[in-house]
Structure formats: C-alpha cells, structure tokens
C-alpha cells in the first residue's frame, strides 16, 4: 500500500489502514518514520492517553470495556492498546485481553490492538508509543493502554500516558501492602475495583484517610458498570487541570525523550552485542566489560 493512501485512510478511521500502520512501525519497517511524520498533529494534541495498570486479575480489561461502553454512549471514538509480556524463551505471546472487550468488536469506533512486549524490560513494548499516536490520529479522542504490573518497571506506562491509574481489588492486599502509601506518588488515580467484594472496605481503610479523601481514589464494580461515570469525570477533570497548568505538555515531552532513549538503546543493541562478543576476554567481570565498552564509546563520541 502507498504510504500516502495508507495515511489518508488511517485518518478516515479505516480499520485495516490503522492496523497495518501499527504493524509497519512495530516491525520497524522502512515506512515507519514516514507514517509517524504524516500523522495529524491537531488530533495528537487533542487526544488523551490514559494508562491502566495493576496486578493480574484486578479487573483492568473489564474496567476498560466498561469505560468504553460509557464513552460510546457519548459517541466518543476510543482506542485500546492491551500489552502483555512476550515469552523470554520463545519470543511468543498469548494475548487474551480482547476477550473482555468483545462486545465492542463490531463497533468501528472502538479500536482494540493487542501488543506483546517483545523482549523489552518494563511493561510497555517499544512500539506502544507509536501505536498510541496512530490511534489518536485515526480520530480516537481517548486512547487507553492496559498493562500488567505493580512494580516500578511497569511504571513505564506513566511516561507514555497523560494520565495513569492503578486498578486494585480485594485480595491483592498483600501485594500492595508494601507500596500502598507510595502509589499515589506514581499514579494519578487509584481505582478500587470489585467494590462488591467483601474486602473492598478493608482495602480502602488500608490506603488511609489521606489517600481516600484526596479525590484520587475511586471505587468501581466494573463487571456491573458501577462507578464508571464518576471515574470518567475524575479523568476529564484531571485532563482539564493538566492542560491548564501546562503539565500535560511537559509530561508528553518527557515521554518523547524517554521513548527516544528506549529506541536508541534498542537500535544500538546489535552493535553493542557485536562489540562485546568480539572483544578479547581479558576480563571476566561483566560489569567491568560494560564500563570499559561504555567508556570507549563515550571517549570517542562524547
């Protein structure tokens, strides 16, 4: 397909063109840069990217589907990127988040894309940032990114999304016990899902008065579409605030820099591997090998 016609169809919201554009970038095809350069900046500017993270089974996909349902009532076009890990051994991946969103499958204004991490540390694949922008350019007012995780590395999502939220549920208390105080320092919103389950009140208590009265902790029953309107109100109120005080622009700039760093490291890997494999093994300490190599490169180019 010609890139110009691909871009035209993409901006018309054509499902095939959108999907193919993401693949071309994800597979690092030659046309990737031209596609990215051809995206409508106006649409990128007005779209909002929301990151949804949390432990496995907390209800991220169910909540996403429920948010999508509410947005579709308002005729808002929405994109969803669901990220799951690739197997480090085989490179393969089983991507099953779509199952919870099947009710929207025939709606052309709900675009779901499953992506695998493809060997990158942290929760996000290298191409997710590009996929987000392609979905935004195709007319999605909101792009939701679902990733698994509660650890620090998964917080990569925080640099890619304009607004981040963590989904917790009763029964995951032990996991978050250690970090619960710090959660609101790394995410914007904390959603206590499965509020219909017995442990929900205990979880809220554990989070502490200060957190729960901050307006940044919300309760949902995603399976029953409860609490979703409030959550969306909180998201859009935060968006307005972030746009007004310029925080959104700053976050996006940082996200771009972080992504650029990731891409650079990705592109340098073959060269670095070759340097390491071919250098004489006078030294057995991997740390020292790395320091020497980095030192040589910096001395030459720094």
């Amino acid at each position, binding site marked *: 397909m010609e890139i110009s016609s691909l871009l035209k169809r993409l901006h018309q919201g054509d499902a*095939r063109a959108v999907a193919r554009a993401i693949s071309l970038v994800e597979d690092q095809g030659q046309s990737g840069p031209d596609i990215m350069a051809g995206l409508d900046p106006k649409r990128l500017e007005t779209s909002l990217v929301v990151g949804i993270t949390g432990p496995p089974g907390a209800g991220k996909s169910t909540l996403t589907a429920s948010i999508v349902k509410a947005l579709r009532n308002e005729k808002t076009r929405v994109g969803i990127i669901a990220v799951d890990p690739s197997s480090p051994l085989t*490179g*393969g991946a*089983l*991507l099953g988040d*779509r*199952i919870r969103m099947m009710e929207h499958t025939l709606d052309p204004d709900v675009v779901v*894309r499953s992506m695998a991490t493809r060997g990158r540390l942290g929760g996000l694949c290298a191409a997710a940032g590009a996929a987000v922008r392609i979905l935004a350019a195709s007319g999605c007012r909101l792009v939701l990114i679902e990733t698994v995780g509660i650890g620090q590395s998964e917080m990569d999502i925080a640099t890619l999304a304009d607004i981040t939220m963590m989904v917790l549920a009763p029964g995951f208390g032990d996991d978050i016990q250690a970090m619960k105080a710090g959660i609101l320092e790394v995410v914007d919103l904390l959603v206590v899902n499965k509020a219909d389950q017995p442990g929900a009140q205990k979880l809220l208590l554990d989070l502490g008065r200060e957190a729960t009265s901050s307006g940044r902790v919300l309760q949902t029953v995603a399976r029953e579409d409860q609490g979703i309107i409030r959550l969306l109100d909180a998201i859009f109120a935060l968006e307005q605030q972030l746009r007004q005080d310029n925080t959104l622009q700053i976050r996006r700039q940082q996200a771009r820099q972080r992504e650029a760093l990731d891409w650079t490291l990705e592109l340098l890997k073959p060269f670095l591997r070759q340097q390491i494999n071919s250098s004489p093994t006078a030294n057995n300490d991997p740390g020292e090998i790395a320091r020497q190599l980095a030192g040589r490169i910096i001395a030459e180019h720094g």
Partner: protein
Amino acid sequence: MKTIYRVLIGKPGLDGHDRGAKFIARALRDAGFEVIYTGIRRTPDEIASSAIQEDVAAVGLSSMSGAHLRLFPAVVDSLKRAGAEDIPVLGGGIIPEEDKQLLKQGGITSIFTPGTPVDTIIHAFTEACSKQHQSRR
C-alpha cells in the same frame, strides 16, 4: 531481524469446548507466534473484525460442534466483505473426511483433525503467515 507472526485463534459457534483452541494457541505461542485469543462463542463477523484490527497474518478456527461447514466459510466471507481476503483461514476440530473438500472449496486453506501432529499445524501456520507477509510488500 526475524519477523514475528501474529495470528488469531477463535472459536465460532455455540459450543463451549475450547480445550483444542487453547492447546493450539499455547503451542503457537511456544513456537514464537503472537497469538490473539478471542475466546468462545464468537460470531464469524466478530472474528473477522478482530483479525483486521489486530492485523494478523492468519486466522485459526476451532469447532467441536459440527457447525464448521457453515461457520468456517462464513469467516472467510466476512473477511472478503471487509476487503481482507488476503488473510488465510485455517481450521481444526472434529471434521469428517468428507467435509474437508467442502471446507477447501469454502476457502479454508488447511484443515486439522485431532490426529494432526502439532508440528504439522505449526508448520502450516508458518507457511500461511509467510505467504501473507509477502503479499504485504
């Protein structure tokens, strides 16, 4: 860099026996594919639409209900209507010998039965994906 193939495994129809589908999904994952699994009881249109959104290089269908003669070609037709006839559809399940020819006529490129070795299935997916990727250029 090695191309990673994306495939969709889906179960059209009303039967809820997804052991076969899940088995194949995991086998393909272990062979290095990215497998989008859409779960049970999907309509042919839902499967085709998902396949397009996910830009997969092949679709694998599983049916244990005997409705494969209607459902498998219906996915092929749905893809065709959406302008995605280049995505090959493979099918597996309890499929009597005499149905195989009919399914082939209905556009199913490979047909597997419970006796088909996993390696044969993976090989068929690899071939189908490789061909589909060539048509992308």
